[in-house]
């Protein structure tokens, strides 16, 4: 009965590169009551979560980094109170340098981005009246597009696509925190990596990111390994230094001949 040439559907590995999810703030009252007293941000927001790197606009991403008070350099750790220094070597004074961000995105094995509609971010989104049947439809079945939606969450992972992977730069804008978006991002990254048969997944996180990762199934290394980062600066060594963002890291030189080397240190 079937025709001779039946089309073969090739399902891509990830059948949905974009999907609609509802992010909800946890309620202390009965579960079906969604309205909370007006707090920072809406209580229920439709978001689109995407795994296509092409959906991320580097400019919007840079603004997200700034509004989350993050920089791509791990340290000095700015902490929750201080602002990230906007001066970045080679940048235009507006945060993370764009060209390096593009390179980083191009070489990240997994890129997850979360979008939402602009109107949902405004503080009176809840109270706006539903106008007509069109308004009702757009409230129940929202259409969020990466082209006109706002980037509100992001996460990426670098991997050798064989054995190991590292997750970096997971962030959600402050007004939409506490709604499970961060967890959605991390779980999506982990799901993609495990579907590619990578189970050795590491995440370098600061103190305030630990609860997020613990909630997603991360923990301290069972083999007891110590996380270490290269921090040798000119103050505890001598020789050539290299500017790496706000730090001046010491470049190891091959076999210092004499203690009083004839090296030239130029530090500005």
């Amino acid at each position, binding site marked *: 009965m079937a025709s001779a040439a039946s089309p073969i559907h090739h399902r891509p590995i990830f059948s949905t590169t974009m999907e609609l999810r509802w992010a909800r703030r946890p309620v202390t009252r009965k579960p079906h009551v969604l309205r909370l007293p007006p707090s920072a941000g809406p209580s229920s927001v439709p978001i689109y979560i995407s795994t296509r790197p092409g959906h991320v606009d580097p400019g919007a991403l840079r603004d997200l980094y700034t509004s989350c008070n993050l920089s791509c350099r*791990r340290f000095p750790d700015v902490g929750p109170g201080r602002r990230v220094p906007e001066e970045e070597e080679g940048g235009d004074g507006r945060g993370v340098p764009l060209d*390096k961000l593009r390179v980083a995105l191009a070489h990240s094995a997994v890129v997850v981005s979360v979008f939402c509609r602009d109107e949902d971010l405004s503080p009176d989104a809840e109270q706006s009246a539903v106008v007509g049947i069109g308004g009702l439809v757009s409230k129940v079945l929202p259409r969020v597009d990466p082209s006109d939606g706002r980037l509100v969450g992001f996460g990426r992972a670098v991997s050798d696509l064989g054995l190991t992977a590292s997750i970096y730069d997971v962030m959600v804008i402050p007004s939409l925190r506490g709604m499970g978006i961060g967890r959605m991002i991390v779980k999506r990254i982990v799901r993609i990596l495990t579907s590619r048969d990578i*189970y050795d997944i590491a995440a370098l996180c600061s103190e305030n990111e630990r609860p997020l990762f613990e909630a997603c199934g991360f923990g301290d290394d069972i083999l007891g390994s110590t996380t270490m980062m*290269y921090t040798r600066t000119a103050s505890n060594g001598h020789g050539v230094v290299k500017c790496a963002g706000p730090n001046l890291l010491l470049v190891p030189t091959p*076999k210092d001949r004499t203690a009083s080397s004839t090296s030239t240190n130029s530090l500005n």
Partner: protein
Amino acid sequence: MLAHNLLLPSPSSSSSSPSPFAFDPHRRRLPRLHPLFSDAAAAPARLAGASRRIKFLPLKSSFWETIRSGFLKDSATQIVDPPISPEEEEEILPQEFLLFEKTLPDGSLEQIMFSSGGDVDVYDLQALCDKVGWPRRPLSKLAAALKNSYIVATLHSIRHSPESDESAQTKLIGMARATSDHAFNATIWDVLVDPSYQGQGLGKTLVENLIRTLLQRDIGNISLFADSKVVDFYRNLGFEADPEGIKGMFWYPKY
């Protein structure tokens, strides 16, 4: 601010200026160093081995002679420092240089070559992992990991027999690799040196060269996860444990 570490050539060696010569990618031979040469004008060669990124480039004339002249006839160990090159091109040029060479009691010459070209035979690597006592990992995954790592640095021991007719025997004795997003972050994995060659500073050289290459690319976040036994080794190289509260967490599937 890149400052160059300028070292003057040692006064004892003959002061001939090093001559640049063009890469010949098909020539995978070693620099013509005779163990008993009298003139110290041989500069460490930079050959591009059979690696995937091969460019024709005239060598930059920033070598200096680092070979000390005057050594004993038997069991001579000579140290050759790698050249520090000025501003590199955008891509990583695979580097290959001689670390040192030694004349063994049976008259053969053993050379230790460093290479960042990533030319590793995955079976050799598996055998080396067995030698250091690491658990076995699937070969296909190992090969994929090597292919997609940003830098793979290797140490090979090349033994030339006294009769120059026989070909040299090459053996993999050390490896270190780093994954990176090419812009901000890098993680060093899998640093290993053959047990019979440990204790000579080879591991230190591997890691230092990795760090140098990464920093020259302006990749500032260099991290690694060290076993408890080697934490001090990395501390001596300039790594700090849990800097400013940054810890590494690992994913564990919940069944």
